[in-house]
């Protein structure tokens, strides 16, 4: 009952062009049937994400461990709440990050859990930069 060959093949890596995304905007792409948020963070958002005392977080993780160095403005996370799999809404909630409408989990501008029942941060999918304006997810 595990995924069949065609499902696995359809889950191959995809490339996303980042150039049309303006600062402060984000897009949602689908990879393996999962929504992936790619946010072009503003300076303020990056500073907010970096100003937190990491040890005080429910799932401690520094912001630079969640983005690629040299590309700090880009946050790429799987848009699936780690609680029960709903899709959080971007740019909502008291931390300017993501807010899950199902059970009220709040994530910050780095996709880290700050409030609510979700146990862990939003997952960062495997990806790398193939050029300055293009990433490959998967």
């Amino acid at each position, binding site marked *: 009952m595990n995924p*069949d060959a065609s499902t696995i093949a359809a889950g191959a890596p995809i490339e996303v062009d980042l150039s049309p995304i303006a600062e402060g905007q984000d897009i949602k792409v689908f990879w393996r049937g999962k929504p992936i948020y790619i946010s072009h963070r503003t300076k303020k958002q990056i500073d907010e994400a970096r100003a937190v005392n990491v040890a005080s977080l429910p799932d401690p993780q520094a912001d630079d461990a969640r983005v690629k160095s040299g590309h700090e403005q880009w946050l790429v996370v799987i848009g699936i709440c780690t609680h029960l799999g709903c899709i959080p809404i971007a740019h909502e909630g008291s931390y300017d990050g993501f807010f899950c409408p199902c059970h009220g989990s709040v994530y910050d501008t780095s996709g880290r859990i700050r409030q609510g029942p979700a146990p862990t941060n939003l997952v960062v999918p495997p990806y790398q930069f193939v050029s300055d304006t293009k990433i490959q997810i998967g």
Partner: protein
Amino acid sequence: MSGPSDYQPSNPALQWIERRLPIFGLIHSSFVAYPTPRNLNYWWTFGAILSFMLAIQILTGVVLAMHYTPNADLAFKSVELIVRDVNYGWLLRNMHAVGASMFFVAVYVHMFRGLYYGSYKEPREVLWILGVIIYLLMMATGFMGYVLPWGQMSFWGATVITNLFSAVPYVGESIVTLLWGGYAVGNPTLNRFFSLHYLLPFVIAGVVVLHVWALHVAGQNNPDGVEPKTEKDTVPFTPHATIKDMFGVACFMLLYAWFIFYMPNYLGDADNYIPANPGVTPPHIVPEWYYLPFYAILRSIPDKLAGVIAMFGAIIILCFLPWLDSAKTKSSKYRPLAKQFFWIFVAVCILLGYLGAQPPEGIYVIAGRILTFCYFAYFLIVLPLLARIEKPRPVPNSISDAVLAKTGSRSTPMVSTAIVLALAGSLFAGSVDSAKASEGGDKPPGNKWSFAGPFGTFDRGALQRGLKVYKEVCASCHGLSYVAFRNLAEPGGPGYSVAQAAAFASEYKVKDGPNDAGDMFERAGRAADYFPSPFPNEQAARAANGGAAPPDLSLITKARSYKRGFPWFIFDAFTQYQEQGPDYVAALLQGYEDKVPEGVTIPEGSYYNKYFPGHAIKMPKPISDGQVTYDDGSPTTVAQYAKDVTTFLMWTAEPHMEARKRLGFQVFAFLIIFVGLMYFTKKKVWASSH
């Protein structure tokens, strides 16, 4: 099923079979001669009611499966086609969907009855545990069945419930992938759920056979909790229990028919009339009412794994009930303290169900935690403790003593139980309603609709005017893709002739093909064609409308709702108020205001609407006074347009509504007579036994 039978059929053909397969003896000893305690009350008829419901679910389900397509792209449409085009498909679907709820109503009564009268105690432990297994199977079947229509709530319910398994340490993620057959809920998930949903009812039927077998070995418990001792304590199953059960089933059918014919969507969720969309989570994910208490337990525990364990534990703990409650007295009738705690427990379950439908915030979370504690405390603290400290009242010597003692004084608990259970049912059911989202929008005013109530019919004039408004105004952005031109000539609709419908269709251009040269071409519409949609796909619709796709209107009056709130949803079950959708649509069309109230900011490209959730709607004011001309002299005002087009959209959402209500009246007339006949037959049969 209890020992060999000495029954011999008189017919030689039956004798021939009986010598080779003693099936008639089995039936005779199990359902005819079987001794049943003579003091059973009506709570004991729920076993028969449950068997009846299982049979109904299997029969309607098999026929529905003949018309259903288990494919993520086609499932939603195939369910709509069942309702619209299959002969009596609307009836089959309502019977099956409402039947699931009624099945659970009956099983909860059955379980609480077992709890109250101590039916799980020695020697009926295995019987009880088999019952818990059936209940678990029912929950799995019900959940998977709810996924099949592939609406928004189906999809997101499936996502949330399958994600529960990701809480399992180490192997959680692999289990979830195995359940999905992919990387997210999708087509493979739907296919396997369909397969299992077809299989599990037969597994349930198998376990029911074991359940009945165990019952007939241990014998039935009874309200006094003393085992039958002499022949005087029992009556033969047939005719006594048979006729009583039939009377019980007939009464239950009245309740069942009330929902099938008059309130088929009351127990469901409006969001499930929106096709599944993996990119949008509904504002509130609410399971079906029968899971709500467990959902509340899940949410009140802040830790994910612990929450899942508590939720499953709440059901599994029932298996240990025979050993947790070690009191010798079975029936709570003779246990003054246990009786009170039982009713507190019932209240706790009802309140948990109510909380399960509320948003998880503020006071609801705290209340949920307290009640979750109470739930478990009943099993783990109260029952073991009561068994040690309670002093039960003396139990009658035998069943016949109990019957003689009771003659003349009908017990009052029956009345209070009935009240509490009626409250329970409506509170549970309605709490789904109250969870339906419509935050930040004003309550739409109620309207007087011609189609409301048990005898409601569509106003033909309004339907025809509404069609005109749709065609001239709405159709430029909104599709009506489930409605075919031929529907316009069908009974219960706008009342056009077949020729008129065909003429109406021919005004449309429909894409067809490919032809012999392999090209697509356009031709004039035919009666069998569906209303063409204004945009080729959702993305085009989104792009052309500033990011918000105009929804298809075929089902809009059923797919929209608003919060009725406590206690209105309880009254609604009796008054048959179910026009939230039409009220909302009509209000929305009239809810535009140029002056934005203070404190509300409307983003660029959106408009202020008083009734839209969040108030910022992308659709500009769609219609103004005098925009559409009416031939019949009706006022050409926005209010009239709104009313007409809403009536029309109610018809597109449920073209067979008039047939449903008409048949409902006939069924009720029949059932009431049938119930009466059953009652007097039962009275006659039992006359000598009381």
